């Protein structure tokens, strides 16, 4: 078993629906190992996106703790945690529309506190190239790229931060099957060769089948659905 890098501890979260409080997550706890590729499945409205938002510190749980390398991220600072410890890939290719592909990737590299050795822009081009975005396309405004290309840039943007924890909210949803497989393979490589922990929320059984551990969110709890032996 790999060391625990990320932990959800007794998380609860709910919202008011029709005047009544509806709990989406109920005392949810789970430990994520370093260097593993996780997928989280669940029907629509089960709270997958909320769980991802809490895990990536985009929102704050009502009760419970989120631990990164044994430290509560609240104490670490939510902003610092988002800046230096994790990256997130959204379902919609969340990119800045007045920047080019390479500038979008560079943007994330500029935000992290880490000092980059070498040419930051060249590194961004290299990451984009590994995602199949050549320099001529990388220099185009993001709005001039296709949906699939934009999603590749979004993934490159997340990878460019060079962090240990990568979250994804349906990151392959907008990609064709071939590209989707390439990305899944990349996630596997990042987990197994580079020791990154990948946590992906998905509807796709195909993506789930390719992950190391598949979790299912059911009635506010996270259960292991499948574990690669």
């Amino acid at each position, binding site marked *: 078993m790999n060391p625990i890098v990320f932990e959800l501890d007794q998380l609860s979260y709910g919202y008011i629906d029709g005047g009544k409080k509806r709990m989406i997550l109920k005392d949810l706890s789970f430990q994520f190992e370093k260097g593993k590729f996780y997928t989280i499945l669940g029907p629509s409205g089960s709270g997958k996106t909320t769980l991802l*938002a809490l895990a*990536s*510190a*985009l*929102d704050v749980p009502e009760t419970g703790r989120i631990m990164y390398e044994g430290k509560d991220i609240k104490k670490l600072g939510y*902003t*610092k*945690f*988002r*800046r*230096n410890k994790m*990256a*997130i890939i*959204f379902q919609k290719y*969340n*990119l*800045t*529309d*007045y*920047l080019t592909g390479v*500038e979008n990737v560079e*943007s*994330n590299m*500029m*935000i*992290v506190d880490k000092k980059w050795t070498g040419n930051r822009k060249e590194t961004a081009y290299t990451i984009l190239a590994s995602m199949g975005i050549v320099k001529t396309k990388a220099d185009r*405004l993001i709005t001039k790229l296709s949906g699939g290309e934009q999603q590749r840039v979004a993934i490159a943007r997340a990878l460019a*931060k060079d962090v240990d924890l990568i979250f994804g909210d349906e990151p392959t949803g907008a990609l064709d099957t071939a590209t989707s497989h390439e990305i899944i393979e990349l996630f596997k490589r990042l987990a197994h060769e580079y020791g990154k922990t990948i946590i992906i929320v998905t509807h796709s059984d195909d993506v789930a089948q390719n992950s190391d551990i598949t979790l299912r969110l059911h009635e506010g709890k996270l259960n292991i659905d499948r574990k690669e032996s």
Partner: protein
Amino acid sequence: MRVVKHAFLSLRRKPTKAIMIFIILFVVFGLVFTGIIIQNSITSSKEFVRKELGAVVEMKPDYIKAMTDQLDNKDYEQLSLSATLAMEIAKDADVKQVYINETTAVSSEKLKSAQKEGGNVSLVAVGSTSASAVAFMLTGGNTFVPIEFDYGSLVLSEGRYRTAEDQGKDTLLISEEFASTNSLAIGDSVELTSSVDNQIYTFEVLGIYQGSSSNGVDQMYTSLESAKKLAGTVSDDQHASSINFALKDPLEVDSFIERHKVEIPTAYIYLDAKDTEYKNLTRPLDLIATITTILLWVVFVAGAIIMLAIITIFVRDRKFEIGLLLSSGESKLKILSQFVFEILIVSIIAFALAAGISNVSSGYAAKWIVNNQLVEEKTASSNQMISIGMGQEMGTEVNISDVAKEFNVSVDRGVILQLILLSFGLVIFSTGAPLMIILSYKPRESLQD
């Protein structure tokens, strides 16, 4: 680094809203700057009028009030000017010099009047021992240079003023006409008879002046001590013929009067700053200033509200971008800085262009004001005279034509500083609240919108 780079890229690649902000700021700045520059010019013109009217405040007896109140003869004492009080008031730091004058009638059997026919009629010596004696006015002042020379139209053309070395001597300043009529030169002696005790005093001609005082060319000037000697008021420090305070700054006249009017023990003495003349001359300017102020505030407030609305849209429009940056761990302050920087760049460009254009446009506006307001008012005002002492007038004249000539658009360092502060204030006021919204944004909510 990211903040600056992205601010420039955002402005260059998504310029629509920046252009809208620029246009609003440019128009608002332009109108406000024009207003400020015109107001500044009006202030300068008013200062010019105030300075031209002089920084002289006169302590005057109010004869009209005395007559209206039908004062008894014994109560006319209340109209006496107190030199002691004047010296007390003169301790005010704003007072440059106090001029205490004693004017008395003197006569001489040897001297002839220099008054031309049709001019001031020469005085006949009342109470003189000789019927052939001619009377003259002798004014003695506490200063070496009489006020008429400091603030009036008289100019010393020959000789010199009194100095400390002349203390105790009876000296005279006479007019060129008087000197010529009586063949007098510097250093000559002149005998004058007191109208009080008919005693003859010998005076030395120290200086000859050019110009005519309100008493005509026979007017002679001497020291206060000499005048009091001839007026028979040597032992009386409580009375003077005229008292004038020359202030260091003409613009302090009103506050000076306000401070000291309470010290005057009688209602029949007042401090006069030629306010009527000043108000007559500055009325059209005040009207323009009032209209400009109203317009300025309307434009300022309307501009600020429009800016506030645009910046709110500007921020809301980029909520998703803010959410994206927040999700990447960017601090809210840095995001705020980027927006502030963008607005600052637009504001600086708008400021520079508006300042340049307003400088020109305010020139046209000023010309219009001069042609349509001041010059048209010209007929309504007559030349204003400043009176010094009882029955005496000093020849300084200020009229609307002078004011119109002086009305120039001026942009000095003070105005530029005022414009910068005002622009900065407008930008802070209109952008502060909408930009602060950024601090309340949560990453998840921003991304969901």
